[in-house]
């Protein structure tokens, strides 16, 4: 058990100028489940690999349990990792794959076998121990990879998009399994994903990365309710938050006939107003919009509309009750709930708080 600390950790790939991970400062508590999330190329996997020792750290430090591991080889960091494609040894049986980390550390065979049995029982793999990975389904392989990671109870678990090769249903199930497993063992876990649903459901805290920089780190709810900048606002939440740039007058911006008071202490000018789909109602009055697509997701329906806001054409997404949702081609009025709106500085993209 240990905490993890990135101190201005930077990685610049040879032959490139912009850092893949740029002065990352992040403190992961002992026993915490930290999710690194971001779009492709955001540096989340690089950050994880820096922690594993599979990627050099060009500047700054990485600490595990207070110990500076920046220059230690991977095997001396006491971390274990689940790879995206599992990286199982195809020529070894499931039992041998799971036992591999112990074997490399010279653990006696009798102890190894016993530990393998325990882990296999925990993961429901008892019946597959003599099989080769090629004879397993995707979900079973994933569990073998998990087994190999937990067998020696490392200080830190690292997971690099471990569920991305599974089908949707299995992914949801494995997500719950991983969360339960992590809670059982209480091992500090760093989990990389581009899937915000995974990030929101798994993480105690979520760190959002973009272009190598940490955008925001906090509990999932905090990220959703108080995104720190335009990027986080647009990235967290599905469908994404509606963002439009509007001029302010008399301390308000006008959106669909609703006056939304701008943050105090800010000058008159323009603001980026953010409204989540669930904060945008299909109402009798408001912004006139043309329904382009209706996505029925069961209880709710997302209504994708084209509209004109502040003189510019844009697309807005509203959430409606599925049974009462408008039809494609309808004309509707959209009305924001003013108290749930977010404001951002159009120049810096930073959040502006209303008090």
């Amino acid at each position, binding site marked *: 058990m240990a905490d993890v600390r990135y101190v201005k950790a930077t990685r610049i790939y040879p032959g490139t100028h912009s850092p893949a991970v740029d002065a990352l400062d992040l403190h992961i508590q002992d026993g915490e489940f930290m999710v690194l999330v971001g779009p492709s190329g955001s540096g989340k996997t690089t950050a994880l690999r820096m922690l594993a020792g599979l990627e050099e750290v060009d500047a700054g430090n990485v600490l595990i349990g207070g110990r500076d591991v920046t220059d230690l080889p991977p095997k001396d960091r006491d971390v274990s990792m689940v790879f995206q494609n599992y990286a199982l*040894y195809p020529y070894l049986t499931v039992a041998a794959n799971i036992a591999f980390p112990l074997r490399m550390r010279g653990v006696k065979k009798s102890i190894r076998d016993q530990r393998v049995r325990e882990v296999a029982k925990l993961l429901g793999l008892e019946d597959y121990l003599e099989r080769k990975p090629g004879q397993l389904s995707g979900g079973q392989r994933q569990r073998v990879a998990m087994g190999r990671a937990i067998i020696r109870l490392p200080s830190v678990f690292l997971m690099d998009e471990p569920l991305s090769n599974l089908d949707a249903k299995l992914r949801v199930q494995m997500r719950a399994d991983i969360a339960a497993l992590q809670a059982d063992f209480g091992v500090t876990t760093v989990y990389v994903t581009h899937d915000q649903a995974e990030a929101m459901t798994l993480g105690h805290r979520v760190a959002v990365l973009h272009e190598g920089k940490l955008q925001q780190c906090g509990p999932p709810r905090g990220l959703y309710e108080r995104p720190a900048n335009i990027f986080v606002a647009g990235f967290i939440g599905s469908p994404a938050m509606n963002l439009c740039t509007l001029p302010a007058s008399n301390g308000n911006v006008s959106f669909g006939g609703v006056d939304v008071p701008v943050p105090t202490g800010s000058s008159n000018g323009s603001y980026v107003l953010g409204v989540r789909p669930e904060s945008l109602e299909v109402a009798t009055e408001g912004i006139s919009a043309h329904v382009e697509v209706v996505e029925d997701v069961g209880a709710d329906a997302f209504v994708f509309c084209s509209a004109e806001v502040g003189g510019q054409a844009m697309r807005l997404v509203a959430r409606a009750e599925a049974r009462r949702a408008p039809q494609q081609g309808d004309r509707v009025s959209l009305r924001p709930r003013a108290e749930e709106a977010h404001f951002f500085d159009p120049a810096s993209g930073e959040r502006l708080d209303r008090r």
Partner: protein
Amino acid sequence: MSLNTSVDAGAAALAAPVIDRTRAKRKAARRRRGLVLLFMSPWIVGFSVFFGYPIVYSAYLSFTHYDLLSAPRWIGTANYRYLFHDDPLVWPAVRNSLWIIAIGVPCQVVAAFGIAAMVARARAGVGLFRTIFYLPALAPPVVATLAFVYLLNPATGPVNLALSHLGINGPLWFQSPQWSKPSLVLLSMWQVGNTMIIFLAAILDVPKPLYESAQLDGDGAFQRLRWVTLPTISPVILFSVVIGVIYGLQYFTQAYVAANVASGQASQAGDQTVNNYGYPEGSTLFYPVLLYQQGFRYFNMGYASALSILLLGVAFVVTLLIILNSRRWVHYAGAERG
């Protein structure tokens, strides 16, 4: 009753088209077989003329006395009895062949793998190194052998010259019964280019995450080799061992040329009156050399055929044994063997 009749009538009406359909299906299958045979015919003809017929005919000749001048005369198993019981050269030749296989093949495989592993790690100039190590494979065996006999000439060759500068008294190489076979092994290791290229492709093909995963658990070079590289490329190792063994069983050109040249008879290689096969002291008399000697020097075609049929059988059995044994240590990616 009326119901039954109508059912029967219906069945009869159905039966006719069913028969038609089976007939049409059979016809289509026949046509498909014909087409397959047609497309395969170039290979079938080639195989029959150049492999099938000669093998069958050799098998027949092996039971005859045949000197190329008079018609083959049936002598039953006399050739085989002579082969197994009387010919004093067969067992030395078998021993020499076994030696070149047992020592030569591992040396070649290790050399090919070692060079490939080094080239794979090169950070720059991979293409250059690859070319340098591959080039010798392009040299025709006769030329390469001539060059080696020259290089390893005990008195005037540059190798012994260099050794003497280091204060080492170089061996007699191709002139000595102890060193002639090791010299040939050196020659074969110099020509591992083809195998090296296959190894290189296999090594570069090992999935990187396997190495990374191993790195988290311990990252000694030996561990990487033992647990990741070797198991992953095991099919290529099997391939090169099988090819190497078959090649070793047929080992002829280099031995023949080296013996001829080394015995100082290069200029009279065509002179059939001098026996330099296996020079020095029969140390390079490999089984195929003996076969050649019997067939094309003594014109004992019947006996030579018996020798070649035995070689064919041994090659077949040995290859089969290697492949059967390989199931324990060769892993095929994607294949789901037990």
